[in-house]
């Protein structure tokens, strides 16, 4: 018995399968891969695998031992996630030079999981600087009241407002008095400037007050202004928060805020930043954020790639729910939480060099994560990627359409990144050209609004040497959302 083999997976049956089902599965495989008759590549290996699996699973005592082991390491009947890999080239041409190879990995929450909502430990940190006056603050207050209405008794809420200094309106506590909390939210008055660090520090203190491993610890920071001089502090606090499992949602309203800062703060903590272009959208965005927070299948999701020699990872991106570069922490690629209703699609680009002809195994990709609510329970899945390496080119190799689609959107996202970095280093004409090219690609995808925004900004850039603050945000947040199909905000 080899403990690192998934015998049930070899047969494609659940752990609850009867011995008759296992026998059937074994017979099908044995017929298909029998070395004397099978034409399939690797038939020998597959046949042996099936033999070995059947030996273990057909013997009640061995199967019991094997099941016991699986339960111990958490690989039990209900794994929290499944993996589906799509590769760009099923056949690779053997060549001395490096070649590219793409893998699209879908991380899908298991469908048969009980739909449990995790308790929330939430703190709202709201900007109340003078510029929030009017519609903005009014909508934020309304959104806050609606959030309060949606809280469950096991949820904790804290409420912090900030301008030049922070003020705790509602210390974080469980099962708050909703009527009191809502009336407190209604009293927020605008005044002062914007110092994000003040608000962040006070908010994190409130989250810490009710922090527990069993709940989702989260801070929502909403601002409409630039903060000056405390950016570094904000980033350090965000990273520290991430390390103690507090994630940040950073939200910018209007156009006069620093998208680089909010974006980095969110990603350092494992959260998401959002551009709110109209105050009317605040309520929906708050509710949406809150709904996703509690519906988590696995947390601290991380991916490990074990390639054979000659293969190296060039770049890794998340494509859905939104496009972003994936951060590396040591050997592991950090994926963040996996929501019940939000599968992740990841796209990896590899470089392959010097594979011998007929070599099959390319790499193993493992994704693991914490199953929340159950102490010390890890869940993991892996996929093995294989490819046929041939001395002659395969004329029939078709790149799977999902890979082409994903890469096409990613190409636009990367062009946006490059345009911004050109701009930062003062290369105006290069940035202009990139925005123009980007517009063409967007038109080809039928993204006319975003294409128009890119063209408009390209024109502005050529004339004035800079982008408009709205344009900057529209392009940045627009390109990352390219992967999202038009989605409905559920009415509840």
């Amino acid at each position, binding site marked *: 018995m080899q403990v690192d083999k998934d015998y049930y997976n070899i047969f494609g049956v659940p752990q609850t399968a009867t011995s008759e089902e296992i026998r059937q599965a074994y017979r099908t495989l044995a017929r298909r891969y029998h070395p004397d008759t099978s034409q399939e590549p690797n038939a020998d290996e597959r046949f042996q695998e099936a033999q070995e699996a059947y030996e273990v699973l057909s013997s009640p005592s061995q199967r019991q031992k094997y099941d016991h082991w699986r339960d111990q390491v958490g690989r039990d009947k209900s794994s929290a996630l499944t993996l589906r890999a799509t590769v*760009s*080239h099923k056949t*690779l*041409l053997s*060549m001395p*030079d*490096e*070649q*590219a*190879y*793409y893998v699209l990995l879908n991380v899908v929450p298991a469908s048969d999981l009980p739909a449990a909502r995790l308790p929330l430990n939430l703190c709202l940190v709201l900007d109340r600087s003078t510029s929030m006056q009017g519609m903005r603050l009014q909508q934020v207050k309304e959104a806050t009241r609606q959030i309060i209405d949606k809280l469950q008794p096991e949820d904790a809420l804290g409420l912090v407002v900030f301008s030049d200094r922070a003020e705790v309106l509602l210390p974080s506590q469980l099962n708050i008095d909703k009527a009191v909390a809502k009336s407190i939210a209604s009293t927020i008055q605008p005044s002062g400037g914007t110092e994000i660090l003040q608000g962040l520090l006070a908010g994190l203190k409130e989250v810490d007050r009710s922090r527990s491993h069993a709940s989702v610890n989260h801070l929502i920071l909403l601002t409409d202004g630039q903060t000056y001089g405390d950016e570094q502090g904000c980033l350090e606090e965000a990273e520290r928060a991430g390390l103690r499992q507090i994630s940040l949602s950073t939200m910018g309203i209007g156009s006069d805020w620093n998208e680089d800062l909010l974006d980095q703060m969110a990603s350092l903590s494992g959260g998401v930043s959002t551009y709110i272009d109209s105050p009317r959208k605040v309520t929906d965005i708050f509710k949406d954020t809150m709904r996703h927070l509690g519906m988590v299948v696995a947390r601290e999701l991380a991916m490990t790639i074990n390639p054979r020699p000659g293969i190296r990872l060039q770049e890794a991106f998340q494509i859905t729910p939104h496009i972003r570069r994936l951060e590396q922490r040591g050997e592991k690629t950090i994926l963040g939480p996996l929501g019940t209703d939000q599968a992740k699609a990841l796209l990896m680009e590899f*470089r392959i060099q010097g594979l011998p002809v007929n070599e099959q195994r390319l790499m193993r990709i493992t994704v693991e994560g914490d199953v929340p609510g159950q102490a010390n329970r890890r869940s993991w899945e892996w996929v093995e990627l294989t490819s046929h390496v041939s001395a002659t080119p395969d004329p029939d190799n078709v*790149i799977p359409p999902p*890979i*082409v689609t994903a*890469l*096409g959107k*990613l*190409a*636009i996202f*990367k*062009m946006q990144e*490059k345009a911004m970095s050109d701009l930062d280093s003062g290369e105006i004409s290069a940035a202009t050209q*990139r925005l*123009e*090219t*980007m*517009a*063409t*690609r967007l*038109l*080809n995808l*039928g993204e006319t609004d975003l294409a128009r925004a890119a*063209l408009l900004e390209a024109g502005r850039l050529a004339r004035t040497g800079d982008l408009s603050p709205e344009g900057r945000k529209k392009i940045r947040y627009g390109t990352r959302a390219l992967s999202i199909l038009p989605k409905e905000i559920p009415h509840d």
Partner: protein
Amino acid sequence: MIKCPFCQTTHVPNTLFCSECGTYLLEDDRRGTDPLGTEEIRWVGPDDEGGEHLTKQGSGPLSVRLHIGEGGREVEASLTKAIHLGRLDPASDVFPEVDLSEDSGLERGVSRRHARILKREGTVVVEDLGSINGTFINGKRLAPYLPEALHDGDQLQLGKLLIEIELS
């Protein structure tokens, strides 16, 4: 190594998208537009030749008649809305009003979304939609996305496909 046909950047084999300009590098030869070479192209900028100022008001021409290529196929279209010129490709959701596939559009370097003709404040203009091989009026290349006035009798050229314009 493989080369991006659009920006000439080189990439390792099997690369699918150009990292510089986002061009799909495996574009099916039968569907993609190849660059035809760009020697002797003059760009028409907004300040060139005193600029074609778009006149305000006035109803202007009502329709445009296109005499396409050597075949001389004629198409007449109303100017009540924009007329897109290109090559029909349902697969990528491109449905131009004037489909030039039959006029050896591909061989002559017409893009799927090549150009559009529309009436703006009484003047008929043509706008290049970022085509690979360019749009020309009487032999001068237009800057992409910058509409230029079109007159009766003008020679419009998409890539290497000549179209004579008749306004009425």
